[in-house]
């Protein structure tokens, strides 16, 4: 009798488990090829931008309409955790087929063998690629990416608040101070550890703009006197309270669009994003007025996931994107950024946005925000540097000690 009862309980348990397994399996994905059409996913943090995202989605739709063999759909990966999420997925043999990376993550992924080499998939000799940014796409003769967007950093300023753009660092500080009153701030930059990648982008301009560098190509130079000078300038502005302290980038960029922030150092992509938030804002752009004309550039390559079962089809999309007409359209969507190939800006566009040439003129003096010689280790070095610089901003340690600590920690990391 007891045995009979146990057997019935077991049958019930197995049935319930089986039903649960069937339910879970039934909810699983079945992507890939369907009815002769290969379905691909494309992940790009820019797809979430209010100004550029919808336009980029339409650009993808144009590719889908151009042929009937491959369909590309956007993969929605939130910007705040984009790199971490995609690298986790790729590291486990999954993830989107096509990815638009930022440089630090691109270097890590290519070093880890997560990106498909493009040498046999795309014949780049057919295209007039921009040489300066394109040189960073090749590692030891293997091409891992094609530039999707190259966007130099410059100084955006509210032309209603600032009649003449500052041309020296002293003028820059004075302008920031004079504009800061009430609910308006002279300047804005990222200054919290929660925005690690953003802080790295921002301090890059201060370090290189004051003659510093994160490395000499062989050794890290995080605590060099030039770096200290540049980061002291960054800290002085923070201490002067000319920025909305504690405010994240999303908020202070909206403040800039609403005329509550006077200046911001940002990349060319910001033009479209700002107009997307406030089409009536009267703003202008000038080179960053720091002592040395060197600034960061956002290099964003498009790559093919090594785990993608449809690399040829993914390459079809990249080849379509490289066609001259599609490059022009992409450049117009991206704003003041450059694309992979040499493209001419139309007279209409130049009339509409005269400062586009400011960005173009900065290409030769712009550098990707990676640590040269330690490219694949950039995310790790970034973490160490940002943590220590933020500690100095918050006053828990003086800046020189913070940079010495960062140098020591990062040197141990890279070995």
């Amino acid at each position, binding site marked *: 009798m007891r045995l009979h*009862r146990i057997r019935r*309980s077991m049958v019930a348990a197995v049935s319930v488990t089986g039903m*649960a397994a069937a*339910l*879970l*399996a*039934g*909810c*699983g*994905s079945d*992507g890939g090829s369907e009815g002769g059409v290969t379905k691909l*996913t494309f992940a790009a*943090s*820019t797809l*979430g*931008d*209010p*100004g*550029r*995202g919808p336009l980029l989605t339409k650009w993808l739709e144009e590719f889908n309409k151009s042929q009937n063999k491959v369909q590309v759909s*956007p*993969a*929605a*990966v*939130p*910007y*705040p*955790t984009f790199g971490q*999420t995609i690298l*986790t*997925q790729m*590291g*486990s*043999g*999954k*993830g*989107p087929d096509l990815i638009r990376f930022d440089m630090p993550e691109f270097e890590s992924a290519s070093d880890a063998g997560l990106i498909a080499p493009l040498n046999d998939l795309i014949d780049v000799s057919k295209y007039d690629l921009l040489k300066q940014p394109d040189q960073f796409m090749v590692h030891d003769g293997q091409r891992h990416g094609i530039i999707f967007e190259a966007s130099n950093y410059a100084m955006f300023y509210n032309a209603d608040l600032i009649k003449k753009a500052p041309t020296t660092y002293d003028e820059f500080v004075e302008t920031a101070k004079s504009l800061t009153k*009430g*609910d308006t701030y002279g300047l804005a930059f990222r200054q919290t550890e929660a925005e690690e990648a953003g802080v790295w982008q921002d301090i890059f301009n201060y370090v290189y703009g004051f003659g510093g560098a994160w490395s000499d190509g062989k050794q890290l130079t995080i605590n060099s006197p030039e770096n200290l000078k540049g980061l002291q300038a960054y800290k002085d502005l923070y201490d002067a309270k000319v920025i909305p302290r504690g405010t994240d980038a*999303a*908020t202070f*960029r*909206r*403040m800039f*669009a*609403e005329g*509550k922030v006077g200046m911001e150092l*940002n990349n060319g*992509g*910001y033009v479209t*994003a*700002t107009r*997307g*938030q*406030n089409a009536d804002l009267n703003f202008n752009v000038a080179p960053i007025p720091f002592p040395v004309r060197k600034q960061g550039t956002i290099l964003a390559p498009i790559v093919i996931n090594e785990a993608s079962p449809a690399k040829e089809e993914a390459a079809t999309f990249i080849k379509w994107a490289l066609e001259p007409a599609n490059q022009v359209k992409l450049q117009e969507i991206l704003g003041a950024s450059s694309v992979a190939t040499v493209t001419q800006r139309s007279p209409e566009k130049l009339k509409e946005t005269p400062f586009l040439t400011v960005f173009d003129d900065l290409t030769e003096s712009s550098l990707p925000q990676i640590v040269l010689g330690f490219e694949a280790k950039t995310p790790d070095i970034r973490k160490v540097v940002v943590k220590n610089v933020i500690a100095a901003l918050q006053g828990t340690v003086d800046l020189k000690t913070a940079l010495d600590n960062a140098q020591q920690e990062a040197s141990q990391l890279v070995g």
Partner: protein
Amino acid sequence: MRLPHVGLTLRIIGVLLVLGVAVFPLYWMFVTALTGDSELFASEARLVPDFSQFGVFIDALAEGKATTWLLNSLVIAAGTTILSIGLGIPLGYALSRFSFRGKVIVTVVLLFTQMLPEALMVVPLFALFRRFDLLDSLGGLILVNSAFVLPIVALILKGAIDGLPREVEESARVDGARPLTVLLRINVPLIAPSLAATAVIAFFHAWNEYVFAVTFVFTPGLQPASVGIANFIGELGTPIQTVMAVSFMFTAPAVVFYLFVQKYVVAGMTAGAVKG
């Protein structure tokens, strides 16, 4: 004669203060969603919603994405609640009523799992879920959330069952009830307050979960609201009013769920805390 009134007044003020602290973030989200662009960063913050801006809620819903995210969140949260309680009841019962070798170790291990941060488990669980084809599915998220919430559910239910007199079960057995019948018909109704408490814990855990949801799901139509809202945060811009409107709608169902079961929760939290 006046003293009781003073006490009551102070108590009401205290309750209102606590209520204000708890409700204010929700109210602030609502007001921000209904604030025009020009007033968003004004030095004097708007404290009263501007209902002429109500279109932001309609626009957020009109696209359909927010509704899909909320529905996905509801499926994941409800599924996690049902699965974790369904598995937590027999586990809690076994830990409470049966003596077996390693019982203490099992209990300690259950507690230990609560100390593991989710981020630590993402990579190994991703590989495991990929092997069993559970990625990019709501079922997979229900499973992973249940795995994380099950230990605390089981331990709370164990505490509640510990507090039940064994004589009740023995009487039922004398009347011919089987072990499963005793558990389902005698014990479960008696631990209803604890079940409500664990339901709240499981529901809220799954409703708010972000790390697994953002990593395990690729299809936009399967994303829950916790991930969907983060999608609004762009590299160069964020539509703040839309984020606040969707966040407000995201918070509301969870609050309603809590109000629905709250009368059982306090009793459930303390059940089993003091044993006779």
